[in-house]
């Protein structure tokens, strides 16, 4: 926290939080758009319920408002690293499945992947500003993907995107919380501030 005391560090943190919030918002927006396209492309039902996907961190958190800043950042970082791996896998599967035939979904997936990466970078930077060590990715690497059928892969993709959308909302809230003058106070953001 020592680093956070300097004005430049505070400014940097505010900037990172601000842009992280907006990135989360854009990510959510893009994911929502992609979900519609993905469901249509994959021939899925938009209302289909997807059970919890293995390796996908849940956005829901108990006692969310009690979390500290670093704790929030670490959870977010872990989640987005996982999403990054999942989305990369989805992108690979997408290319294997459709080749270059449906470039729009592939481009959208690639864009979201970049956004996830960018958001993970934001989180890492914030952790550094918090003078917290950034955990290595090797430890947080998701388990190797199980052998799944095509339909199962489609459903898993749907689940990843839906959960990412949830995480985008939560991350925005987390960052708003961090951006407040007393980070880690645990005050829940007002609904009006939600993206």
């Amino acid at each position, binding site marked *: 926290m020592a680093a956070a005391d300097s004005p430049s560090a505070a400014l940097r943190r505010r900037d990172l939080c601000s842009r992280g919030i*907006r*990135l989360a918002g854009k990510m959510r927006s893009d994911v929502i*758009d992609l979900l519609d396209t993905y469901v249509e492309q994959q021939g899925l039902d938009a209302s289909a319920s997807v059970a919890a996907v293995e390796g996908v961190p849940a956005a829901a958190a108990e006692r969310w408002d009690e979390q500290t800043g670093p704790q929030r950042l670490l959870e977010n970082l872990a989640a987005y690293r996982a999403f990054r791996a999942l989305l990369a896998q989805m992108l690979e599967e997408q290319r294997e499945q459709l080749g270059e035939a449906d470039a729009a979904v592939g481009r959208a997936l690639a864009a979201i992947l970049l956004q996830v990466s960018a958001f993970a970078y934001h989180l890492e930077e914030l952790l550094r500003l918090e003078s917290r060590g950034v955990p290595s990715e090797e430890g947080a690497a998701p388990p190797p993907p199980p052998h799944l059928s095509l339909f199962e892969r489609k459903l898993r993709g749907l689940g990843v995107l839906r959960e990412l959308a949830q995480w985008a909302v939560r991350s925005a809230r987390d960052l708003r919380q961090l951006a407040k003058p007393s980070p880690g106070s645990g005050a829940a953001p007002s609904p009006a501030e939600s993206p």
Partner: protein
Amino acid sequence: MFSGWNWVAHGLYVILNICSLEVLGGLVQSCGHIIPESPVLALGSNFTALCILNESCLDFGNIYANQIIWKIKNRVVPKEQYREINRTVSSVTFNDTSSLASPLTCNILADGQIEQNIYGITVTVGLPPEKPRNLSCIVNQLSKLTNPMTCTWNPGRHTFLDTHFRLKYRWPQEDFPDCIPKDVNNSCTIADVQFFVNMEIWVEAANALGKAESDPLVLDPIEIVKPLSPHNLSVNSGILPTVLKLSWENRISAAVMKLKFNIRYRITGDTNWMQVPPEDTASPRTSFSVQGLRPYTEYVFSIRCMKEDGVGYWSDWSEEKTGVTTEDKPSKGPPIWRIIDASHSRASWTVHLMWKALEPFEANGVILQYEVTVRAKSSLSSPLEKYNVSTTNLTLKLPNGTYEVTVIAHNRAGASPPSVLLIPASNSKAPVKNVRTLPKDGKLWVGWTAPNSYVLKYVIEWCLMSNSSECITEWQNEPGNVQGTYLKGDIKPFKCYLITVYPLYADGQGSGQSVKAYLQQDRPSKGPTVQTKKVGKAEAVLTWNHLTVDEQNGFIRSYTIFYKTIDGNETAVTVDPSKTEYTLSSLTSDTLYTVRMMAYTDEGGRSGPDFTFTTQKFGKGEIEAIVVPVCLAFLLIVLLGVLFCFNKRDLIKKHIWPIVPDPSKSNIAQWSPQVPAKHNFSSKDQMYPEGSFTDVSVVEIEADDKKSFSEQDLKPFDLLKKEKSTSEGHSSGIGGSSCMSSPRQSVSDSDEGETTQNTSSTVQYSTVVLNGYRDQTPVQVFSRSESTQPLLDSEERSEDHTGGGDSTTQRQQYFKQKGGQDETSTDRACFERTKQITPANEGDLVGFAQLQISGQSSQPLGLGLEKSTQEAALSDVLQTSTEGQTVRPETVEENPPNPLSSDEMPKSYLPQTVRQGGYMPQ
């Protein structure tokens, strides 16, 4: 000769050796090579190349490094740049590579004569890349999810080498593939960028001589976004006639970028855009209500957006959409004016009411009709007359008087305020002053000085003055607080406008003040046609017609008359433009002049056709001045002559038309020489005493001398002869001889004769006073007769006889009687000699005029008459002689008569006769 062959043979040997070596070493083996091989060199640097000979060539070809020649293309490099490193290596050094060119060859001079290429390299000279500068990027949004970023930079100088540029960018934790420009070297587009992460961007330029990188640009691409403009713009009219509501869709997610907007709008047909205040649209939205618009007006709208905080770029303007506001009631009444035609009747007017259609911004809708109300101001009880018309004019016939006219325009939304026009009985109020015009900015400005009274408004009338069309009046209203305005209409240049300003008061109207004006002047389209009205000797009156208003093209400021003779200089005279006549003076008489005329406006002049005229030879009155005095002088002379003749009429009459007594009334009086006192000739005697008549000259001239007299000299005698001949018939021969003019009174029937003579006497006498000739004694003879019988005839007959006798003798006698008034000649010969003796009698004109001549030779016709008369007279004479009066013809002797004989008969009155030129007293 032999040594020469040896030299050639040696050369061939060397070449064969070289060739054989090459063949032995392989097809591409050469005797040496150059280091470095195909270098790329920086422009301006120094460069050293080495040519290394193979050892094998040394053995077989006897070639060494000192025989190497360096060449650039086909140009030998100066040997100063060579350096023989050893027997197989030669180097060449270039201090400046700019002098290098390809190929650089290493050659050998075999035996100092034959040059053989050993090796060659290609040298490439260029520059290392400069550091790219001015790197800038922009994210041009293509769609909601596609945000390509285009970066541009300045690549720097030309390197002459193949230089590659790469746009490199990365996140702190992630690198991205380079963006490689296609076909250009100064820009590259990254297909998609992610926002909200700082990106480091830089450009790398590289070629064979090195690489250079630009300064990195670190930015979040969201800060350089040029978003797509809002789309699906729609315009809807609201409840209010001054409001239109715009709606649109943004094409960038609000989660990505919050936007602010610019809204611009204009009236359809107008080119000037208006803009909604930016602060009103500085927040994200998808709709906006534009207020303050005109009712019933079509507007065009357009919108653009950019990042809310102003970082980035404005989008392009969206497509334009139009919308129309709803109607509102007209904001003002129509301007109204009138033309009063009072020509038909003195008791009533024909009033042409006219009003202008409201401008769209005043009408606020579609004008459905106009309501016109006319009320007479003179009588309050007069009814209000209303007219509903759809046109903009109304003609009414009204009795003379003051009226108040109101016009109200109606549209769907309501009625306008009324426009009121007072039509007074007379324009008796104060007019404006000093009406003036000024062309300004392609329009015509009219100014005036306001009257002292408060003016409600002004009406400006104007019309185009033309010969070809009638003056169509246009007009406009101006408020009462202005003193100038631009004419609102199609004012054409070079046309004359008559502009009239009327002040309108609350209770009347001032008379109009007019001025003529041009928006723009030009030279006249033609010049005046000049002609002469009157041409004199030294002046000419020129006349011309004014140019028509269509020809003037401006105000005619002056005329200039140019006139000249054929070979003279042109003279110019400036004439006032109001004149149509001018008199040229000081012209040369009887000279051809060419005259032309120019009319000038402010912009220049134009000349009319030439006209020629010739001045007169004589001036006015000159001929009269000559002729009249001459005539007057002539008349004066004639008058004087007449007066003179009148005064001397008696004398003239006596000598030219003597009173000839009527022979038919004559009788022979009894008279006797013894009683001469009875005869009343005392006056004559007193006037001419006997002693005074002494000279009778007898001139004897040879007949041939007659020729010496000119005809001129004889003319007077001819005239007298004629008179004699004509009067001879009446003559009774006063007392005898025709050469004798008698001062005696004679009996005559003539009244005149009676008044001048004593007619009571029947006794005629004559006195002949003769002078001597040539000192000869003159012979005085008095003859007397009481009768008025034509003794003359007897005398003349005797003269005839005498003449006949003289003709044979070729002698002539001339008698000149110097008796004051009387001259007598007794012979025709004397007539012919008259001229000769005239000088002797010049002072006695009367006597000369009284000559009575019996013509003969010069008057053949008269001669005949004379002869017959003379014959008759002769018989009469013979008769009288028988009665006691003896007339005896005798021949006058040449010898002068005896003076004594004349003395002997001084007082005797005897008939006398002249014979053969002589004069014989009887």
